[in-house]
């Protein structure tokens, strides 16, 4: 990977979070359009973040929720 590409790739996570200055964003966006490997790197990082957001959504088991409330009523009420 070229030095310039490495520098841009280091900024991709901040770019996803909207943490880069406007002038750096412009340079980065231009580079992503012109450099297919970096463009792919950005797409795959974005996909990975999206998958974490959408793919991890397990709910608390009902029994654990019931036991939590029973535990708290015993230990908190009247304390």
């Amino acid at each position, binding site marked *: *990977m070229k030095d310039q590409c*490495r520098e841009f*790739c280091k900024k991709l996570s*901040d770019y996803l979070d909207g943490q880069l200055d406007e002038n750096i964003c412009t340079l980065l966006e231009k580079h992503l359009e012109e450099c297919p490997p970096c463009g*792919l790197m950005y797409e795959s990082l974005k996909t990975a973040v999206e*998958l*974490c*957001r959408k793919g991890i959504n397990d709910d608390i088991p009902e029994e654990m929720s019931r036991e939590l409330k029973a535990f708290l009523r015993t*230990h908190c009420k009247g304390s």
Partner: protein
Amino acid sequence: MDNDHEIIQKVLAGDYDAFETLVDRYQGRIYRHLRKMVKDQNEVQDLLQETFLSAYKGLAGFSGNSSFATWLFKVANNTALMYLRKKKPELLQHGDDIEKMEQFEFMPASTEFVSTPMDILLSREGRKKIEEALDQLPMVYRTVIVLKDIEGFSLEEVADITDSSIPAVKSRLHRGRNFIRATLGQYYTEKNPTKKHRG
């Protein structure tokens, strides 16, 4: 529906039922966070109970400078860390493990990963792979990804919850996300060998 601060005032005035409203509101998110730190369901249950009990007892000390969610997640995070330091210190011993993490940072992206449709990436098997990739991350990286990318906290809030600086959070997010990207990329490249030699 009352906002958190209004509910907290009711709890502090002695209304226990109001506290159950907070429990209903946050138990799912706190459960998910603890489950990503501690795998064993019995341990998760104990830590969940301890978190809400500590929150109830410490509610008068909640200053309102942050959101209640941030404060509660900080209580949960510290409760789990204290437990792990005592019972499973090996899970925390890797620290930032920068050397291991750096090898994933510039690993080339997988065309197969990016071109796989979202419904396949989010299938039962796909979700399992996401879980596995997350679980392989050292705790400090996993925690910031769970808080930022799954729970949706801001960088400032993640820094507050984890007692870290914002640059440290950004750097951990960068490395952690690249680890997930590279790990899932590798999996989908191997899963689709016919496409492997294209381009």
